[in-house]
């Protein structure tokens, strides 16, 4: 049995004043096995974040259901840790206190909290910054803290919603390696949403490609690159072939999306 099962999940945002209902997500099915690292790749606006928010329980599906270890998801919970694209560290808490937030909510004893925090602070390379407030950290450090905060809670699955989207290219590459290193060491189940093809391949064991809006998963591709992966793998022939294949798939969708928006503009204009 898979760890996470997304079964025919769709999302339609109801009509508002002056606009028709929006189909953000067409019935989508995805099975995530234990310790899988899956990238969900799609053009912007395809509903990939909506899908992740539904898994997190922050949004409810219009139809279908999400099962975690066979139990339907009804709302957000500590068993699904999430890292957002926006910086969501609590600004009034230090790095250590942010990492302990979930443990504190659970009522974990202080000593265990500080041991766990220390472990994850080391893991994401933030030793020496434990008592810094988020505003004193760079974007990359903030996202590392956010990853540590999600991991410290020991969730069954880690959900990452374009966590490196706001970072510059160099920091982004380093963060990918950091994330991959953590996965290689600790074997977590991860669902990683991105629109960056290279990133999707580099970190994942499997890439799920979504169609343009209204989105659904149209194709899945296994990434058979050995672990541990070194960043130089990005320049290998195998990697390039995978990238070429995905670029083609995504390009088709991006063209469809842009044709659709041109058509809408033509109708309304």
């Amino acid at each position: 049995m898979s760890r996470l099962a997304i079964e025919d999940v769709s999302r339609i945002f109801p009509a508002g004043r002056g606009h028709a209902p929006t189909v953000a997500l067409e019935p989508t099915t995805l099975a995530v096995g234990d310790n899988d690292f899956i990238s969900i790749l799609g053009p912007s606006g395809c509903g990939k974040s909506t899908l992740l928010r539904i898994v997190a329980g922050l949004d409810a599906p219009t139809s279908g259901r999400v099962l975690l270890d066979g139990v339907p998801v009804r709302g957000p919970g500590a068993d699904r840790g999430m890292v957002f694209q926006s910086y969501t560290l609590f600004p009034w808490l230090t790095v250590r206190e942010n990492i302990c937030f979930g443990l504190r909510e659970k009522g974990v004893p202080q000593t265990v909290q500080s041991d766990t925090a220390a472990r994850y602070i080391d893991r994401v390379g933030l030793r020496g910054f434990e008592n810094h407030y988020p505003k004193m950290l760079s974007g990359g450090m903030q996202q590392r803290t956010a990853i540590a905060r999600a991991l410290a809670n020991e969730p069954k699955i880690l959900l990452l919603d374009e966590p490196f989207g706001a970072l510059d290219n160099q920091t982004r590459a380093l963060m990918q390696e950091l994330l991959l290193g953590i996965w290689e060491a600790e074997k977590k189940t991860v669902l990683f949403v991105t629109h960056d093809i290279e990133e999707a391949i580099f970190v994942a064991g499997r890439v799920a490609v979504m169609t343009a809006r209204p989105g659904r998963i149209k194709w899945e591709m296994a990434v058979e690159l050995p672990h541990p992966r070194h960043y130089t793998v990005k320049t290998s022939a195998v990697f390039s072939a995978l990238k070429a294949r995905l670029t083609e798939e995504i390009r088709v969708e991006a063209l469809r999306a842009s044709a659709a928006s041109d058509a809408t503009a033509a109708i309304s204009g």
Partner: protein
Amino acid sequence: MTPLKPISAARKALYGIAFFVLFVAAWSAATLGGLVSPTFLADPLTMVREGYTLFAKYGFAKDVALTIWRVVGGFILAAAVAVPLGIAMGAYKPIEAFFEPFVSFARYLPASAFIPLLILWAGIGEMQKLLVIFIGSFFQVVLMVAVTVGSVRRDLVEAAYTLGANARGIVRRVLLPSSAPAIAETLRLVLGWAWTYVIVAELIGASSGIGHMITDSQALLNTGQIIFGIIVIGMIGLVSDFAFKWANQRLFPWSLA
């Protein structure tokens, strides 16, 4: 001058003081130069002398203390009820739907217009003064706190949910700490308004306080004392403002850019 370009701390202080100097100079020129009759406006020197007389002969210190007590007392009473209610309204939409329309309406009821009614209900004692401050501050604080709490960043709330927080945890460990600096700022602002209400309350139906001294001096056409009273209020306001700002910086170091 370049738009939005910062200036050095020394020059900032210098410019701030310069205005006060110019202000007093213009005042002196107008009064000591004989442009304005002393009946309408006392000159700065007379004002200082009258101020000294007030403290030395008429026990003005007691009036000042009483006025401060009334403002602080009424304000603390108002804040003690308004802040929790505002937090509840900001956090829970049904509570907001229940109270918000009435509070929005009550906010526009002028506190000073209640004074005759309050004298009828509570006499001209301390309770009446406290009630004026209470009515004047309460509704403002409720609404401003509710808006602050209601506009806490959604992504922070969502992050807390994914970390396992329940409703209680969200209110106590996300909404509250996140809004605390803005709530403190609201209190600082409304305390400033409370000062205008207390003086109005003391102008009508009081036998002590800075406002009462001002009405007394008006009867005697003593503009020096009136101006001195007004300046004392300004000084107290300035001190309380600084105290609030100082405390906020100490309490919420994380919120400073």
